[in-house]
């Protein structure tokens, strides 16, 4: 059972190390950082920071689908005809848009810890429980992202005219098929700029998870800064890495927007 998975993961790790833009064979730190504080390997902090870069990017990428799916269902709930469903959705948005992200993170982190501890105590296990910071960060950021995402999707839903649903009915499609074939493609096109902004906010919020000990960019550069006493340089590098992530995402999003806009070019 574990054999193929281990092989898969080591293969993935090998590919990741090959295309690593910071410390891989063609990495920036490998070529320009040798001999400085940013050298890869034991001589410098290059590989630690590269690992942090990977953690930050994977946390944001892992949170995105979670937040999108939850946000989609909450948007559906908020535009439903059922009053209780609307109310429940609105409570969710009000709470998680109003709380500071850091507080949400602490509530999830310590709350999960207490819950798991109590659950294990009833089963009979008494011992220290440590929650994975990655999972706690994913849940907290996903919850915040979904609250904002539901608002973006809700306004996108409102921009789709009723006639589109009626056309789906007239074609004899059932409701799921109408949603999938007619509504969703338009929804994505309308919501994409808003979702792009949310993605940028998510990317920046991942820095908060370093507070509960996740070894992301900020944590790794912080450790390096404390050890080497070159705080300005290392936090400057953290800023630059976040800027690079933001630039990559803005390029990706403008390409996405262009490709979704092809469909409406004829009109």
């Amino acid at each position: 059972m574990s054999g193929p998975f281990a092989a898969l993961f080591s293969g993935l790790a090998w590919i990741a190390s090959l295309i690593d833009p910071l410390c891989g064979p063609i990495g920036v730190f490998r070529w320009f950082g040798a001999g400085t504080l940013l050298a890869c390997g034991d001589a410098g902090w290059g590989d630690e920071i590269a690992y942090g870069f990977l953690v930050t990017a994977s946390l944001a990428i892992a949170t995105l689908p979670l937040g999108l799916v939850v946000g989609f269902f909450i948007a559906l709930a908020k535009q439903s005809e059922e009053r209780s469903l609307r109310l429940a959705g609105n409570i969710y948005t009000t709470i998680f848009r109003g709380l500071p992200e850091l507080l949400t993170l602490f509530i999830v982190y310590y709350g999960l810890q207490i819950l798991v501890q109590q659950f294990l105590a009833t089963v009979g296990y008494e011992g220290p429980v440590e929650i994975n910071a990655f999972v706690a960060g994913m849940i907290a950021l996903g919850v915040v992202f979904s609250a904002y995402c539901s608002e973006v999707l809700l306004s996108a839903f409102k921009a789709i005219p009723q006639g589109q649903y009626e056309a789906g009915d007239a074609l004899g499609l059932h409701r799921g098929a109408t949603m999938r074939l007619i509504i969703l493609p338009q929804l994505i096109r309308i919501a994409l700029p808003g979702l792009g902004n949310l993605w940028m906010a998510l990317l920046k919020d991942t820095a908060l998870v370093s507070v509960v000990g996740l070894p992301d960019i900020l944590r790794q550069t912080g450790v390096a800064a404390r050890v080497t006493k070159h705080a300005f340089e290392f936090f400057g590098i953290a800023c630059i890495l976040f800027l690079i992530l933001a630039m990559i995402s803005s390029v990706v999003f403008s390409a996405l927007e262009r490709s979704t806009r092809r469909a409406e070019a004829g009109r």
Partner: protein
Amino acid sequence: MSIAETMIPPQAPPPAPPKAYTLSRFFGSVALGIWLALGVGIFLTVVNGWDPEKFSRYGPSFLSGLGVTLALVISSILMGAVLSLPVALGRMSKNKIWSWLAYAYVYFFRGTPLITQLFLVYYGLGSFRPQLDAIGLWWFFRDAWNCALFTFTLNTAAYQAEILRGAIQSVPRGQHEGAAALGLPQRVAFFKVILPQAMIVALRPYGNEIILMIKGSAIVAIVTVFDLMGETRRAFSRTFDYQMYVWAALLYLSMVELLRNVWGWLEARLTRHLKR
């Protein structure tokens, strides 16, 4: 009395057909039930764990933390508003150098996390202590509160500059031309014609920015400023009482909701001349 009424005596309306029990109704009840259970659970833990001694000990520190948060947010928003004017003008300037500089400033502060900027100022500027000492600014950057205020001001200035620029550019060209046709000097036209219309457009984004600042200000707790979040963390680390986070959540939520409602009222009031 008409003949119809004598022939057909008045009757009660037929009973409304019972509402179908749909799937969405089921899910709605379940979701509301979960919220209700959570609310009751939190209420019960607060009531059960109620400790007057803790309340009298940590209540005042929570209030002082609230004051620190509010002071930080209000002063950084106001100072950021002043600083955002030249940045917005630089963004719209035809001079390549100015517009590029303003763009770089805005891109940096909007593209990096606030917490990284705060660390850069609070920990990073410590590396330049001799230089800062030489120009007599070290006393300012030694204090965490000043560093937080400095970072937040720069950060919110970048966001507010974008809000201002977007709002000013949303005013139609005809307004500029109309003012020019009336022979108004450019300065008067800007302050009396363009800016008032731009501010109405900018009102909602400004409200959002203040809310973002209130929420973002929680991170100063990490650099040892005892704002609401900092006091909460201190109280939690002493008591290990989960309630502390519930209290902080309630305070933050009520702050944000209050601001949202005040802003909604303000917007309705200020745009009442636009209603048809």
